[in-house]
């Protein structure tokens, strides 16, 4: 291939970077928004349940310790036409596998444990006495939680959201199994880096890596500051 043509191809591929970046950020944001209410409800339940909650804690943490490909395989089985859920989705005309929806599902499942664990710790450190006192003042458990526990735990909760968002940005193993690596359709930043390395275009891979490292570093730094503030606030 003449040199001028190679330059043209490289320029074209680099112009895809903003698109991949935007797609990855959108997917990470949607998946984070989807799991936040579930993680909050489950963390609140587990907190109130005490010892019984440990069972839920263990299940919620599973995707954190399993190989992402194992999680991807389970998701593939659950969402395939052979499973009752997959069959039901097909009947009502919802296609999930190898679509952007599958990317959201993979990111959501893989980032859920981080968010849940961060929420659990944030709620735990907010001092249960305030919740108890609020109830003696006539507040129902939901109102006491919403008006007292949540405002006291907001730093830890926000930190959990940021961590989950970062995890979603970098999700790879489960995504490639259930969403594939389709450029312009399901290809996220992590998949694009893999793609560029496979194709020998390391310079483009480096640009993408720089993007993801920059974003993750800022977000994790903010998260660490929030966690430290939360700890300091209740240490006394």
């Amino acid at each position, binding site marked *: 291939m003449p040199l001028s043509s190679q330059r043209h191809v490289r320029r074209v591929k680099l112009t895809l970077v903003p698109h991949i970046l935007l797609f990855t950020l959108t997917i990470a944001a949607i998946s984070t928004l989807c799991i936040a209410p579930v993680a909050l409800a489950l963390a609140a339940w587990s907190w109130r349940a005490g010892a019984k909650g440990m069972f839920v804690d263990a299940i919620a943490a599973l995707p954190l310790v399993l190989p992402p490909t194992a999680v991807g395989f389970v998701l593939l089985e659950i969402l395939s036409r052979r499973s009752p859920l997959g069959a039901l989705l097909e009947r009502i005309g919802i296609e999930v596998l190898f679509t952007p929806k599958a990317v959201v599902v993979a990111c959501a499942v893989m980032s859920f444990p981080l968010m849940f664990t961060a929420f659990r710790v944030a709620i735990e450190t907010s001092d249960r*006495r305030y919740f108890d006192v*609020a*109830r*003696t*003042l*006539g*507040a129902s*458990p939901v109102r006491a939680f919403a008006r*007292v526990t949540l405002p006291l735990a907001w730093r830890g909760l926000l930190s959990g959201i940021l961590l989950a968002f970062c995890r979603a940005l970098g999700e790879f193993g489960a995504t490639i199994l259930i969403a594939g690596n389709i450029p312009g359709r399901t290809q996220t930043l992590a998949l694009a880096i893999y793609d560029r390395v496979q194709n020998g275009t390391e310079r483009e891979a480096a640009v993408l890596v720089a993007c993801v490292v920059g974003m993750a570093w800022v977000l994790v730094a903010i998260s660490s500051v929030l966690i430290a503030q939360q700890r300091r606030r209740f240490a006394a």
Partner: protein
Amino acid sequence: MIEIDVRLPLAHFTLNVRCSLSANVTALVGRSGSGKTSLVESIAGLRRARGRIIIDDIPLLDSDHGIDLPPERRSVGYVPQDAALFPHLRVAENIRFGGNDRERFDSLVAALELEPLLDRAPASLSGGEKQRVALARALMTQPRLLLLDEPLASIDQPLRERILLYLRRVRDLGIPMIYVTHQPFEALALSSWCVVLHDGSVAAEGPSRTVLADPAVAGSVENVFEVSDPHHDPDLGITRVTTSEGLTLVLPYEQVADARFPLVVRISADDIVVFGERPSSISSRNVFEGTVASLRSSEGIVDLTVMPGPLSVRITRAAAEDLRLVQGASIWLALRSRAFRIVG
């Protein structure tokens, strides 16, 4: 009338308390770890005890009939030891958390003198101010019963005096109170009935002055007086006051010059001197004639209950034998002014 019959397994023993309380203020006395806080938390519904808790015929807990009202439906005000004000809400918002009744808010703010604090954050308040705000917040719910868990613990003397004044105002509102303390003199200052807990069980129960006169229960024996009607004499360095029982006491002027009355003062039973006949010349400003109502002797110590008062006096057995003290004997007592301590 409050009927309590609860069982709650704790780390080192099972809380097993059965008592009926009809007094306006009941003191729950006991050493640290005796189960006081666990009992009030059970009454507030914050611990899942079994048994029965009934306030004015309304069951809050009746395990036999499957009744266990959640805290928000018990109408029991609870002021924990450290006040537990919500740190993210200002004082006014903390108080309104208990209810939105504007009139009640205004009257509580006035009674507890909270107006200057309303816009402050809880973190900027002193221990005594936090207790007052927590008290107002609990009272906003119009509780059937108020539980106070050691409100004077970790509060210094001048503030303690003010808090006790406010607690007496709350007592005068007529809301039944259970007041947790490990200081017998605090119990005597506020309560007319006393329940003593030991390792989760009721060790003694009865009128505060009777129960807390027992050194085995109280550890040291204190005489507590609510005094009012001060007549200051700065030149002589004394202030004459009248106790609620009608006794006239002389207190050191400089200790009470700035105090708010009515004031609660205490004197240890060890600080009262007994004479067989009227002392003719003595520095003590408080000299009374009395009659020995009862004597209790143990291990070289004799505890006397003297009327009028009643006053608790503790002397050695040698002194009691020397004075030939028997029940009904007439004696004279001297109470040093400077031996009085201000409770609040």
